């Protein structure tokens, strides 16, 4: 029991250090980035996405209770999405960051219109919410000039964006399988929410159940890889001299110190390099 407790303790301490490392890496990049305030939206969009990537990884690393196949893929799916979006924007930052922001403002306008349409006149709480949201929208762009796009924000779907941004591998081997979890599709549900009945009379049908699944720090390792990829794409674009170690290499090296087996041996599925 003591050994198990010590193992858990060392993994948690490792994760704390990992979180500090990626925060440091993120802040170093933001500090060294030469920002032109006139085009502040470009920096806000890219910096915000990079922050989102780090935040998601931190949230996963700090919550061992979700290092499982039920929840962790939801975070990893979001992280692959962040990376594809970021990598695609980085190919033409000014234009694409603008597109990204305008789409978001359009979505907000649509939401406000829905609220207005559904709200009852006397509901002060909803009216206040509408007022606050309209003020947020108008502080960035007049709502009467804001277009609402109900298609893809980039004019491309995620597969096409991934292809343009040279992330096909990530799309095929990570984004797509994790999407199955995010959208609660059969390939996930049949494995994680059903168990086979052993009675031959019952056609070996599957029984719905609430399953306990093992906890695995490999999910955090994967998230470190996605942070790594996003940092790498950012560094390549802006050519910044970064001294903070890259998350992936750091994770592998440091994890060896607390775990006799290399991290790759902990994988539940074959690592495709994504």
């Amino acid at each position, binding site marked *: 029991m003591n050994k198990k407790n010590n193992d858990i303790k060392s993994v948690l301490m490792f994760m704390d250090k990992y979180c500090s490392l990626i925060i440091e890496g993120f802040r170093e990049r*933001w500090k060294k980035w030469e920002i*032109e305030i006139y085009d502040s939206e470009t920096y806000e969009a890219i910096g915000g996405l990079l922050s989102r990537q780090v935040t998601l990884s931190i949230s996963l690393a700090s919550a061992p209770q979700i290092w499982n196949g039920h929840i962790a893929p939801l975070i990893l799916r979001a992280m692959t999405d962040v990376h594809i979006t970021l990598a695609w924007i980085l190919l033409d930052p000014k234009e694409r960051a603008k597109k990204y922001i305008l789409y978001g403002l359009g979505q907000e306008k649509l939401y406000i*219109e829905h609220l207005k349409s559904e709200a*009852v*006149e006397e509901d002060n709480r909803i009216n206040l919410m509408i007022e606050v949201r309209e003020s947020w929208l108008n502080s960035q762009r007049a709502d009467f*000039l804001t277009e*609402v796009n109900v298609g893809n924000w980039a004019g491309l779907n995620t597969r096409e964006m991934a292809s343009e941004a040279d992330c096909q591998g990530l799309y095929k081997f990570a984004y797509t399988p994790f999407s199955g979890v995010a959208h609660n599709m059969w390939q996930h549900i049949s494995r994680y929410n059903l168990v086979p009945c052993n009675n031959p009379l019952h056609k070996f049908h599957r029984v719905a159940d609430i399953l306990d699944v093992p906890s695995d720090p490999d999910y955090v390792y994967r998230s470190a890889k996605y942070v790594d990829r996003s940092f790498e794409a950012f560094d390549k674009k802006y050519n910044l001299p970064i001294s903070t170690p890259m998350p992936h290499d750091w994770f592998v090296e440091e994890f060896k110190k607390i775990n006799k087996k290399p991290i790759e041996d902990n994988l539940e599925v074959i690592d495709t390099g994504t």
Partner: protein
Amino acid sequence: MEKKKGKILGDHKKVGSKFIPPMSQLGMTEVSYVNQIFPEIIWMGLLNKREGYHTGIRIVEFMAKKSVEIKNTEKFLNFSLASSYTFLGADQKIQIVAELEKNNFLQVLQKSLAPLTCLYEGFPMAFLGPPADHNSKETMLAIIKECISACINKYEQPGMVMQATVMYIRGITGGLYFTNNIKPPNLDKIITDFDSDEGKKAAASVRAFVMSEYMPMEGKKSDEWSRSFWNQGYKIDKCHFPWDKK
């Protein structure tokens, strides 16, 4: 209890996957008050802050009228916008400075505009020169920061007075016309009775006018100074990152 409305975005036109608002259908594009217009007019904010609205506007009026008199282009220039002064030649600038000095406006302008003249490169009105008495960089930074904070909201009075001056200068130096059935906005109310209905009505007209002043029918307005003003701002005073405070 009744719900408010029926169909949402009913006045929008659907083009592909996009719903285009009526104003955009008319070809109206957005001009950013903060990004594009504000750097052009903040000099009046500094002047107003130091001298008060009436004296500030009087000095802008004097300078704009003189500039219109001596400019050697047929093109209309609104001299409440800082970049308009880039169209004056060196001799004309000397003439303006002399006129301002003769009328005791030069020192006031030099003192008021010191943060822009001394801290920023390429300020189009830097030809007015720095003030005789020296202010520290910290003092000038504090002044311009306070002024930007006060004027950056285009709906509040300090920002509205700067915008109203753009319209006023257009009115007194030519090129502003109203048809018989349109009553010109009462600009005085923006100073004297800002929160009144008439003040609010005038403010709305002014905001729409200033947008159109920056969006000429022909040609493209240069955003060189606006771009430079904001980009230099990031270098003049460092950004305090939230995590550094912890």
